[in-house]
């Protein structure tokens, strides 16, 4: 026993946990360094073709070069398109899910359509979208929306339907209307479903935006990747992909942060 009354076993347990945590982090960073280092060395000694696969030092140099040009603008364009697509997707998707939850008739009628639309690779709609809304930012946002919408609808609807039926019964014993049941029971019950769907959606919107930017764009990370590929500047492609990875991770973390705030609010 030490002075503050924590048993030695407890201290050992806590130390052990802290050590494991550090060890995991060390390995995670170690693997990254090792990969970058071997990539760099293999390219230096000519074992891999750095024209095709690039190399970390060249990616770094390109990155600095890009920052001096208009990288910020490209990142901004991609993030903007993703967020707009994401927000539209979440709002429309949730509204549609509410309608389908509300009316089992509408849900039954639309089921085969949802199944088909869900399995259809939405990228195939690219040309159609471009022709209808024009070759611009709108088409890209539409693409993001098309990819994330159906998943949101299905995910939210599934959540709504799996609300504990006893809760709903309890609310009906007080004479709750359908709107009250939704607002007071079903929606709050599904806050975590909503955030799970947001997490999936932010990634899907980004897929839609990059696919859209491949098809039509004058700016954005997708544009940089396609442009780099066309002029065989693999350094540019690789740098853009790296930046994209970071942007994607940051946006995901943003959703996680929002979830934490909301969960505290709702005490889940």
């Amino acid at each position, binding site marked *: 026993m030490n002075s503050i009354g924590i048993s030695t076993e407890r201290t050992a347990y806590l130390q052990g946990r802290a050590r494991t945590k550090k060890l995991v982090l060390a390995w995670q960073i170690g693997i990254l360094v090792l990969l970058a280092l071997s990539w760099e060395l293999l390219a230096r000694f000519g074992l891999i073709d750095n024209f095709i696969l690039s190399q970390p030092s060249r990616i770094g140099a390109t990155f600095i070069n890009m920052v001096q040009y208009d990288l910020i603008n490209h990142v901004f364009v991609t993030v903007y398109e993703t967020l707009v697509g994401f927000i539209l997707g979440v709002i429309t998707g949730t509204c549609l899910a509410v309608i389908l939850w509300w009316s089992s008739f509408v849900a039954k009628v639309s089921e085969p359509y949802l199944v088909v639309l869900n399995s259809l690779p939405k990228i195939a709609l690219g040309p159609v979208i471009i022709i209808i809304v024009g070759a611009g930012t709108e088409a890209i946002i539409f693409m993001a929306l098309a990819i994330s919408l159906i998943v949101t609808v299905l995910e939210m609807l599934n959540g709504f339907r799996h609300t504990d039926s006893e809760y709903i019964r309890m*609310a009906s*014993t*007080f004479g709750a209307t359908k709107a009250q049941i939704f607002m007071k*029971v079903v929606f*709050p*019950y599904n806050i975590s479903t909503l955030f799970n769907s947001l997490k999936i959606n932010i990634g899907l919107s980004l897929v839609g935006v990059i696919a859209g930017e491949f098809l039509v764009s004058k700016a954005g990370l997708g544009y940089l990747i396609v442009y780099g590929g066309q002029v065989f500047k693999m350094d540019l492609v690789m740098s853009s992909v790296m930046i994209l990875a970071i942007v994607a991770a940051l946006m995901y973390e943003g959703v996680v942060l929002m979830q934490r705030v909301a969960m505290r609010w*709702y005490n889940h």
Partner: protein
Amino acid sequence: MDVLTVMNIEQKYQAENGEITAIKDISFAAEKGEFVSIVGPSGCGKSTLLSIISGVLKPTNGEVYVSGERVDGVSPHIGYMLQKDNLLDWRTIYKNVLLGLEIRNIKTQENRKRAEDLLKTYGLYEFRDKYPSQLSGGMRQRVALIRTLAISPDILLLDEAFSALDYQTRLNVTDDVFRILKQEQVTTVMVTHDIPESISMSDKTIILSDRPAVIKEILKIDFEMDNRTPLTCRNSPKFSKYFDHIWKELSRNE
């Protein structure tokens, strides 16, 4: 005058493979403050009967009157308590208690005061800002009862309301609830499959038959004592007589 009158209730269910008559010819009445329990074989339609009385379910035939007023749709005079407490995890105890008032759009200053008083009287006021997950099963069930009583019902329906609790808690909660109901002078109809629970709490027990359920007997329960509580009833010599009677009645046609 009878607060609750149930007249010739019949309920049929339509299923793909045919029609099922769940209950039929059910008639009984309850006076103010009376505690009526309904026992019967499982699946005989006891819960269906409660749903009909509360107005959640519309009967195929028959009528229910509360204080002379016909029940059509969920009645504002009736509180209904289910087997599970169904407290909403994301609401504090106080907000859970206010749920019924919110749904009925009667969250007035006065009703809020009543809810607070109920919490105070039954020892839950200090837990008002806690969340359901921080309370024990027995306390949660009491909160659920207060949520139901907050809407000032004339009649309370209990649908196996204690069967989810462990035995020890159950005896205590039944005692508490009984005391609360007698104090608030609430007429109660309780459905249960637990014969001792039915005897120890009620003034009369309605025994239902197998499906299609009809009333086999309405048994008056009288322990001839003042200030009876479920626990003292369980110790009374008359308790086992009632038990044997109901037990025989229930097993007769099986």
